């Protein structure tokens, strides 16, 4: 193996174990920063030693012992050199850590669930939850997270610091939430994971490798979570949803760089192993009690994917699923998707009728700037043969367009209308 490739392989191992090690050490030391620094040192040491000594049988245990040693050294240093009050506190921490180290057995306890719930605590700002989760559990460096979100490193570093300070100053507890708070807290975790996935999945020309890593991390972390809480259907369902989307990533854009709708995609470019994994996760979700919004969304994705061809897409079933989703978790985006499906199932006027219900309500003023609404309306008007109105709607949708692939797609549709 070439030096770069083996370094990459070792790097992957270290990153894969980082979340587990960090989580367990935070339980011992209670200090995020102390543990992060110690782990970083231990990781650097691993990347030096392992090429010579060989990769240890249990990398997580190796990293834990190395990081723990460094953390204790740091505490010792603090105890000796700090101001009296600080030194007293550091001595106390040191004593506890040394006891814990002596009593620690060989197994690294899996405290990742605690860490994940803490990183996703609703008291933290949403962007901070995302950044913290990627940093702490994804094992991504601050630079890597910044790159993936197209942000300056300094901005992201400040965001992370502020979040860690909030955890400390407000005393956000490091624990898995109790039964009474479980549902709401799990929702928060799933929302963070889905956000990470969507961020990585949204087509953009900048930093494709970094964006890709977001999808991979989101899938990996959701898998970890599914293994830790196997009876939670929505976790399996979210995993299914991510895999079913991700499997189609090579078919999303045409040769001209334009976005390609699902039912027109080149299915030979779909990744079938990932599709199978996604369908398997959906089966796992269905076998759990209850049926939540992610399960319904995953069912929609599955319906698209198991159809033998785009022309065979079961639009009626999909429309029914969106109706179900609307009852569970109503929102303009669900209504728009439902209108599109209904338009394909029962004709464009049926879809337009569903959209017009949005125009009267509280969301009316928000609709003016809501691109998917205009794009869906344009498509329905086009299919209904109401060409002049369709052209107007496409122009509105194009004005609001943020991505080049979507822009090219809409421009193509617009050009195809004969006036």
């Amino acid at each position, binding site marked *: 193996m070439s030096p770069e490739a083996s370094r990459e392989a070792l790097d992957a191992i270290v990153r894969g174990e980082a979340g587990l090690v960090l989580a367990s050490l935070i339980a011992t030391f*209670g*200090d995020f920063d102390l543990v992060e620094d110690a782990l970083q040192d231990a990781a650097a040491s691993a990347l030096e030693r392992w090429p010579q000594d060989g990769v240890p049988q249990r990398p997580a245990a190796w990293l834990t012992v190395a990081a723990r040693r460094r953390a204790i050294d740091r505490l010792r240093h603090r105890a000796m050199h700090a101001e009296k009050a600080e030194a007293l*506190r550091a001595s106390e921490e040191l004593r506890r850590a040394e006891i814990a180290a002596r009593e620690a057995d060989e197994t690294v306890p899996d405290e990742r669930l605690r860490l994940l719930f803490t990183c996703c605590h609703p*008291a933290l700002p949403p962007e901070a939850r995302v950044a913290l989760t990627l940093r702490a559990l994804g094992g991504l460096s601050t630079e890597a997270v910044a790159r993936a979100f197209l942000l300056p490193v300094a901005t992201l570093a400040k965001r992370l610091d502020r979040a860690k300070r909030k955890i*400390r*100053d*407000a*005393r*956000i*507890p490091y624990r898995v*939430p109790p039964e009474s*708070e479980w549902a709401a807290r799990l929702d928060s975790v799933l929302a963070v994971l889905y956000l990470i996935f969507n961020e990585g999945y949204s087509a953009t020309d900048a930093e494709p490798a970094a964006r890709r890593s977001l999808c991979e991390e989101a899938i990996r972390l959701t898998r970890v979570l599914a293994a830790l809480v196997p009876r939670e259907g929505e976790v399996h369902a979210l995993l299914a949803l991510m895999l079913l989307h991700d499997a189609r990533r090579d078919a999303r854009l045409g040769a001209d760089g334009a976005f390609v709708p699902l039912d027109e995609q080149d299915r030979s470019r779909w990744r079938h192993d990932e599709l199978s994994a996604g369908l398997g996760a959906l089966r796992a979700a269905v076998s759990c009690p209850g049926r939540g919004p992610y399960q319904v969304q995953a069912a929609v994705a599955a319906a698209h994917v198991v159809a033998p061809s785009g022309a065979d897409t079961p639009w009626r079933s999909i429309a029914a699923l969106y109706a179900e989703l609307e009852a569970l978790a109503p929102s303009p985006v669900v209504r728009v998707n439902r209108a599109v499906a209904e338009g394909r199932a029962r004709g464009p006027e049926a879809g337009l009728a569903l959209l017009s219900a949005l125009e009267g309500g509280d969301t009316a003023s928000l609709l003016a700037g809501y691109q998917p609404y205009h794009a869906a309306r344009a498509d329905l008007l086009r299919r209904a043969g109401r060409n002049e109105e369709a052209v107007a709607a496409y122009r509105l949708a194009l004005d609001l367009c943020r991505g080049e692939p979507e822009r090219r797609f809409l421009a193509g549709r617009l050009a195809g209308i004969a006036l």
Partner: protein
Amino acid sequence: MQYALLFYNPPHTLIPAPEREATIAKMLAEMGAWRDELQRAGVFRTGLRLAPVDAATSLRQEGGDVLVTDGPFAETKEILGGLVVVECADLDEALGWARRCPIVRVGTVEVRPEFGAPR
């Protein structure tokens, strides 16, 4: 560690006049019941219901002088109506109590930890 629970609610003048007295009385009764729960749980440290903002006076140094002005620190839509201080082990415990405060239905409850929380 202590947490201040600060109550921000819309001014009473926004309640339609015919319902005002009854609405306020109901809220006060519910707040009283909530404070009793805090006492029974042993978490209550202190509390203060504040007079309306019309009764507020603000001081600020400008140039060489301390200026005295009628009114609150800032004109806000929701106004600070009072506060309670509780002793809790962590934020989740404080949030648990705040969630049950009746003010949450009509206004905002801010949960602020005391300064320099020891670990």
